[in-house]
C-alpha cells in the first residue's frame, strides 16, 4: 500500500499564435480541404467516365444484335413436297424438306441464276433458320398446304451484317463508246473498237497490277469494277483499253453491242478481299434490297431460342432459364442455412474458442477464389454423390457454397444492428430467448438480411469459374426443363460466344452482356428498394 500523494497539476505551456500566424494556418488548412475535395470529386468523375465509356461501348456493340433482316418472298407450299399422301400427319409434315421450298422461293425472287457455284452462293444469303420457321408455320396451320404465302425468310449472318453495315459502297458512271458482249452468261469478253475501257485502265493503273497478254489483271484487294449492260452485270477480271474479260454476275438479256449511255461502269468501293460478302452475293443482296422485300425486324428470336452455331439463330433463352434454375437452388439453400447459422452464432452460441475459430473461418471463406468451390463441387457432388454433369442443381449447390459466407456475414451484421433493448423488452415481458429472437429480432433484421442475400445472389449471377469444373461451360441447344437437365448460365454463354470467330457473334456477346447487366441492375435496385421500404432507424 502506498499513499497517493496529491501532485500539483502539471503546467502546460501555452503558445498562443499571433493573429497573423493563425490566419495563414487556417488558410492552409482550408486549402488542404479544398484540394482533398477536388481530388475526391475528380476521382469520382473519372470513375463515372470510365463506367460511361464501358457502358456506351457495350451498348453500341449490342444494338445491331437486337434486329434481324428477313426477305419477304412468295413461298409455294407444294403438297408434293410437304404432304405427298395428303393425310396431314404431323410426323410427315415435320420431316418434309422445307429447305427445298425456301430455296425455290429464292430462285424465283432472283431469276436467271445458273451454275452450281452461283446457286450455292445464292442459297448462302438465306439462313438455314428460314426452313425451320416455315416448318413451324405449316405445323401450326396445315391448311396452308397448297397455297402460296408471303413469308419473311431470315437472312444469313453475313447478309444481315451486310445490310447493317456500309455495304459495298457502289457507285456508277455512264460509259462512252460502244462495247460488245461475246455471250450473255459465264465467262465473257467485252470488246470495244473505240477504246471504251481506256478511262478504267487509267484509274486502276495506280495499283501495282500484273499484265497478262496486254490486259491488266484486277485483284481482290482493290475496289471491284463491274460493267452493267443489256440488263445484266459483268464483273471484270482483266482489262485493256480495247477489251475486258469477266464473269457474268447477273445474266444479260442478250449478247451483243451496247452503245453510249446504254451501259455503265459500276464500282464497288469496298474491296472484295475486305468483305465477308463477295461480289456475287452482293449483287443478289442489292437486288433483293432494290425490289423492296428486305425488312428489318426486332430480333425476338434472341430471347426465345437456345444456343446455336448460326449467329442469326442463337438466343439466350436456354442460358436465362439455366440461370434462373441455378439461382433458385442457390437461394433455397443459402437463405435458410445462412440465416439460421447467423442467428445461432449471434444469439445463441457460447463465446468460446470454437465459435471464434468458426467465425474467423467464415470470414476467410468469403475471400476464397471461386474456382476452388468448383473443384470442391467436382470432387464432392459429381464424383462422390454421382450427380449429373452440367446440371443446374450442381451449379446451384456450388454457388450456394460460394455465397453462403457472404450471406452469413451480412445476416450477422443485420442481427447485430437490432438494439439490445428490443431483446431485453421481450425477455422482460416473459418471452423465451427463442421467442425474442424469432418474434422480434429477426423481423427487424430482415431488410438487412434481404439486402445481403440479393447482393450475394448478384455475385453468384456473375460467376463462371466454378462452373467450368462441373461441366456447365458447354454448348447446349435445348432449353433446360428441370434441375437435372444440362444447362448453362448467362455469364458462361457470354464467355462462349466471345470466343467464336464469326463477326456476328461479337454483337451477340455484347447483347448478352447488356441483358446480364440489366439483371444485375434489377437485383441491386430491388435490394435498395427493400432496404428503403423496410429499414427502421433507432
Amino acid at each position, binding site marked *: 500500500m502506498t499513499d497517493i500523494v496529491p501532485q500539483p497539476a502539471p503546467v502546460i505551456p501555452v503558445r498562443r499564435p499571433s493573429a497573423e500566424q493563425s490566419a495563414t494556418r487556417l488558410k492552409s488548412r482550408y486549402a488542404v480541404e479544398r484540394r482533398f475535395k477536388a481530388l475526391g470529386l475528380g476521382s469520382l468523375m473519372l470513375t463515372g467516365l470510365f463506367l460511361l465509356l464501358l457502358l456506351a461501348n457495350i451498348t453500341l456493340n449490342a444494338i445491331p444484335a437486337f434486329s434481324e433482316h428477313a426477305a419477304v418472298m412468295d413461298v409455294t407450299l407444294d403438297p408434293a413436297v410437304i404432304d405427298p399422301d395428303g393425310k396431314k400427319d404431323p410426323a410427315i409434315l415435320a420431316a418434309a424438306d422445307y429447305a427445298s421450298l425456301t430455296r425455290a422461293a429464292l430462285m424465283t425472287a432472283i431469276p436467271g441464276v445458273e451454275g452450281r457455284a452461283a446457286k450455292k452462293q445464292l442459297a448462302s444469303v438465306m439462313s438455314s433458320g428460314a426452313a425451320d420457321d416455315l416448318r413451324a408455320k405449316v405445323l401450326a396451320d396445315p391448311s396452308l398446304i397448297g397455297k402460296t404465302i408471303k413469308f419473311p425468310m431470315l437472312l444469313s449472318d453475313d447478309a444481315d451484317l451486310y445490310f447493317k453495315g456500309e455495304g459495298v459502297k457502289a457507285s456508277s458512271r455512264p460509259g462512252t463508246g460502244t462495247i460488245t458482249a461475246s455471250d450473255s452468261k459465264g465467262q465473257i469478253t467485252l470488246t470495244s473498237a473505240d477504246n471504251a475501257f481506256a478511262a478504267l485502265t487509267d484509274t486502276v493503273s495506280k495499283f501495282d497490277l500484273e499484265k497478262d497478254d496486254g490486259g491488266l489483271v484486277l485483284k481482290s484487294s482493290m475496289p471491284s469494277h463491274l460493267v452493267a449492260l443489256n440488263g445484266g452485270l459483268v464483273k471484270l477480271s482483266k482489262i485493256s483499253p480495247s477489251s475486258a474479260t469477266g464473269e457474268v454476275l447477273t445474266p444479260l438479256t442478250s449478247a451483243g453491242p451496247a452503245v453510249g449511255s446504254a451501259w455503265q461502269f459500276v464500282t464497288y468501293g469496298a474491296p472484295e478481299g475486305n*468483305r*465477308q460478302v463477295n461480289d456475287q452475293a452482293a449483287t443478289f443482296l442489292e437486288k433483293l434490297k432494290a425490289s423492296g422485300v428486305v425488312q428489318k425486324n426486332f430480333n425476338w428470336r434472341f430471347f426465345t431460342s437456345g444456343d446455336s*452455331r448460326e449467329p442469326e439463330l442463337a438466343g439466350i433463352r436456354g442460358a436465362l432459364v439455366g440461370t434462373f434454375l441455378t439461382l433458385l437452388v442457390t437461394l433455397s439453400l443459402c437463405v*435458410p442455412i445462412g440465416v439460421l447459422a447467423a442467428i445461432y452464432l449471434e444469439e445463441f452460441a457460447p463465446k468460446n474458442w470454437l465459435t471464434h475459430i468458426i467465425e474467423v473461418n467464415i470470414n476467410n471463406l468469403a475471400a476464397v477464389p471461386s474456382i476452388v468451390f468448383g473443384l470442391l463441387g467436382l470432387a464432392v457432388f459429381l464424383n462422390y454423390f454421382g*450427380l449429373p454433369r452440367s446440371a443446374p*442443381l450442381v451449379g446451384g449447390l456450388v454457388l450456394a457454397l460460394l455465397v453462403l459466407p457472404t450471406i452469413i456475414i451480412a445476416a450477422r451484421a443485420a442481427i447485430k444492428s437490432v438494439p439490445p433493448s428490443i431483446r431485453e423488452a421481450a425477455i422482460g415481458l416473459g418471452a423465451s430467448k427463442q421467442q425474442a429472437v*424469432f418474434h422480434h429480432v429477426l423481423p427487424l433484421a430482415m431488410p438487412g438480411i434481404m439486402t445481403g442475400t440479393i447482393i450475394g445472389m448478384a455475385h453468384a449471377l456473375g460467376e463462371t469459374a466454378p462452373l467450368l469444373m462441373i461441366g456447365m461451360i458447354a454448348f447446349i441447344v435445348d432449353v433446360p426443363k428441370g434441375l437435372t437437365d444440362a444447362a448453362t448460365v448467362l455469364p458462361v454463354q457470354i464467355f462462349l460466344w466471345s470466343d467464336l*470467330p464469326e463477326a456476328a457473334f461479337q454483337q451477340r456477346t455484347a447483347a448478352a452482356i447488356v441483358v446480364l447487366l440489366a439483371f444485375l441492375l434489377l437485383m441491386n435496385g430491388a435490394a435498395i428498394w427493400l432496404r428503403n421500404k423496410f429499414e427502421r432507424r433507432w
Partner: protein
Amino acid sequence: MSILKQANTLALAAASLVALSGAATARDQIRIVGSSTVYPFTTAVAEQFGKAGGKTPIVESTGTGGGMKIFCEGVGEDKADATNASRRIKKSEFELCAKNGVTDIVEVKVGIDGLTIAHAKGAKAVKLTRKQVFQALAEQVPDKDGKLVANPYKMWSDIDAALPALKIEVLGPPPTSGTRDSFHELFMEKGAEEFESLKAMKKADEEKKTKDFEKVWKSIRKDGAYVEAGENDNVIVQKLEANKDAYGIFGYSFLEENTSKLEGVAIEGVDPTYENISAGKYKGARDLFVYFKKQHVGVIAGLDKFVAEYVSEKAIGEDGYLAKKGLVALPKDKIEATRKGALAMAPLKGDDLK
C-alpha cells in the same frame, strides 16, 4: 414462428431435391468434352445432328488436356462419349485410358487448322521463315559459334536486314492453350532444327536421353517481345487492330473471319490461304481430332449416327458446312480414309503414339 416454418420447408425441399436427383435416369444425350479449337466445329455438327431428329449432344469446352482427363475417366453412362483434341492423343493419355478400362478408342481426323501469324491490314507485308520466328521468340538462341545465348534480337531487322526495322512484338496464346502447344511444335521446334548446333544437341539428347533441345524450343522469351494475350483469339484480333506494328498468332478461322482487318504472314514463301493449308503446302498447320469411345456405341443412343454425321461429305467435305465455319478440309483421299476408319469403328492401336 412463420419465418422459421418457411425456412424449414425450404431447407427440406432443397434436401429432398438433392436426394431425388441422385437417381438420374438413363442418358439419351451424347456428351462431348475437349479442345476449345475443335469446339466450334463439333458444336456445328451437334446442332445439325439435333436438327435431323437426334437429341442435340452437349459439347463442353474444357481444353484438349482437360478433355482427355475426363474422357479417360472410364466407361459408363456417367462418363463422356467423345473428346475434341487439337493434337493427337499422347501415349501417356492412351495408357491412362486403358488403365481405366477405356480400351477401344476410335480416332477421327476431322480436318486441319492452320496456325497463322498475322498483322493488321495496311502494315507492310512481310515474309517469315520458321527459323526467323524461332530467332525472334526463343528465350535462348545460338550465336555465330553455335553457343546458346540469351535472345539478343530487339528488332526484326536485327534478325535479317530484309525484315522491317520494327520492334519485335508478338501477341500469342498463354501456355495453357492447345494453340500454344501447336505453335511450339510447328514453328519453334522446326525453326530450331534449322541450326546446326541445335541439331547436334537434338542428336545428343537422343543418345543420352536428356531434354536439352526440348528445353530450347519450348522456352519463349519473357522480356516483353512475346505478349500472352489470353485464350480468346478475338482479343488478339482487337489488339492487332490497335497496334499496327504487332504480330499475332491464332487459328486460321479467325484470319478468315477478319479478312477486312488482318493480313496473314507468308511462312517460307507460302501464304496462309485455304488452298495452301488444305494441300499441305503451308507449314504451320495441324490436324484436328475427335476421339470416340467404341464401348459406348450401342449404349448411348445415336452415337454411331453422330460419328456418321461428322464424317459425312456435307460436314467435313470441301463444300461442307464445317468449311464455312473455318475448318480447312482434308485432301480428298484423306477424307476417304477418315470416313472408312470412322464408319468401321477401327480402334486405335497406340503403337505409334508419342
